[in-house]
């Protein structure tokens, strides 16, 4: 895998993980 492949894979994973963590954090921390 080349460096661009690593970048695209990592960025995709980061964006989706961030969105998932953010939305579930909002749900779980709602008073």
């Amino acid at each position, binding site marked *: 895998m*080349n460096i661009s492949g690593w970048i695209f894979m990592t960025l995709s994973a980061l964006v989706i993980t961030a969105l*998932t963590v953010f939305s579930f954090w909002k749900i779980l921390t709602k008073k």
Partner: protein
Amino acid sequence: MTKKTNGPEAPGILKPKGRERWATRMGVVLAMAANAIGIGNFLRFPVQCAQNGGGAFMIPYFIAFLLIGIPLMWIEWGIGRFGGKYGHGTTPGMFHYLWNHPLAKYVGAIGIFLPFGILIYYNYIVSWTLAYSAFSLTGKYFSVPSHGGMVDFLAAYQGKIQNTYFQDTTTACIFLFITIVFLTWVLSRGVVKGIEALSTWGVPVTFAIGALLVWRVLTLGTPDPAYPERNILNGLGFMWNPNFAALKNSKVWLAATGQIFFTLSVGFGCIQTYASYLSEKDDVVVSGLATVSTNEFSEVLIGGFIAIPVTVAYFGILETEQIAQAGAFDLGFCAMPLIFQKLAGGQIFGTLWFFLLFIAGILSSMALAQPVMAFLQDEFKLNRKHAALIVGGLCLFLSVPVVVFLKHGFLDEMDFWLGTFGVVLFAVIEIILFMWVFGARKAWKEIRKGADMKVPRFFFFTMRYVTPVYLTVLLGFWFAQDGIHVLFMKGVAAQHYPYVWFARFLMTALLLALLFLVHLAWQRKHRIQHRLPA
């Protein structure tokens, strides 16, 4: 519950007495995610990504996610919660309140027709995954030596040919029967004890099995030292190395948009039904976002790391390209079983892989069945056990031609008109009704009601202008590219014509029957409203 709305006051208003509500917020998010996570997450996405520019595919994919996926998800949650407060769990009742016109309820009938029509053949596909899970456990296909042999194994199972493994479709019918009986049982338990309970364990189990398989794939290294180039890193490269030239091709953009659309299960009428079991003050914004992100997590971070990388590691890039071109089913049902034969602990991992697909599929089947369930319960006051028996019985009866005529293209014909063209058309209709007929400001207010986060104003303009235009362009391209060919049966052998026409007849009859039922339901409401004798 007789609050003034945009729609007509009579005869639709009935207090939503006895309607179920989701027990927990996490339960509704997991049920919605279970609806979205399907077989396509693990088979269709990796094939689409590898065939359409690798990592570069993620650029149009994320753009479509932002401009179509998230807006449509919020719109459907909003329409569903809006309809639920008037006791309607399906789009005929919801559209009745969005559009003050006698035709509205009949247009809404499409939102029951599509999921039920898709359910008829989707159950059959789900049953294949259950069958292959059992075949993995028993090692039934472990003596099939080649890719061609696995293609024949699947064809014989489906009744297309006969061989030493299968003489007819008896085995396929048994697994279909088990699938439909299980589905009927879950539906008969209701929204909380059935759908919510199954989703609450089903989605985590899907993730756990998926994580285990990803770990197994990523630790494979180079399975055959005789072929050092066949390794997992090259497999990941095949999947993720970006080919920016592909972005100049409009087909890549269409493929990415189509993938976002199908993976989120928008345009089916199912999300509206699930959202109708929310209370009026429940948030739809953060919950909708959690649904899409859970689906994306399973698709990109699990689906993207199993099937394609492992196929490259065992077969090399050239053969993987051929397998990917043959489609998602070839990858899942013909290539993967061969890999399990070579993998240490392959029987266990094969069982888990197909069971993962089965859970993902049956949870989606549940969502596809719920609109017609809700319609029978809300509009005809059937209890859920009777409604489940009717839906299960109809699924069994109507799946007969799907099984028997599979080799004649019966399933493919239904899938194009319902599962490809119909869902995009319905999405265009609902977005126009909600954002233009009901009114953009009222729709925006409806979505933001009870929201746990501020929705960026960007989405107001996106929902109003960008999403409907984007979807209409997609629909136009598809119709020009594939629709005309399918409509005039180009490339279909003459001996298959009667079966293709039979599929069209069945779909038309189903739609007419639902339109008649909608008519009856509204007559019934009218009689109740005015206390007229039956």
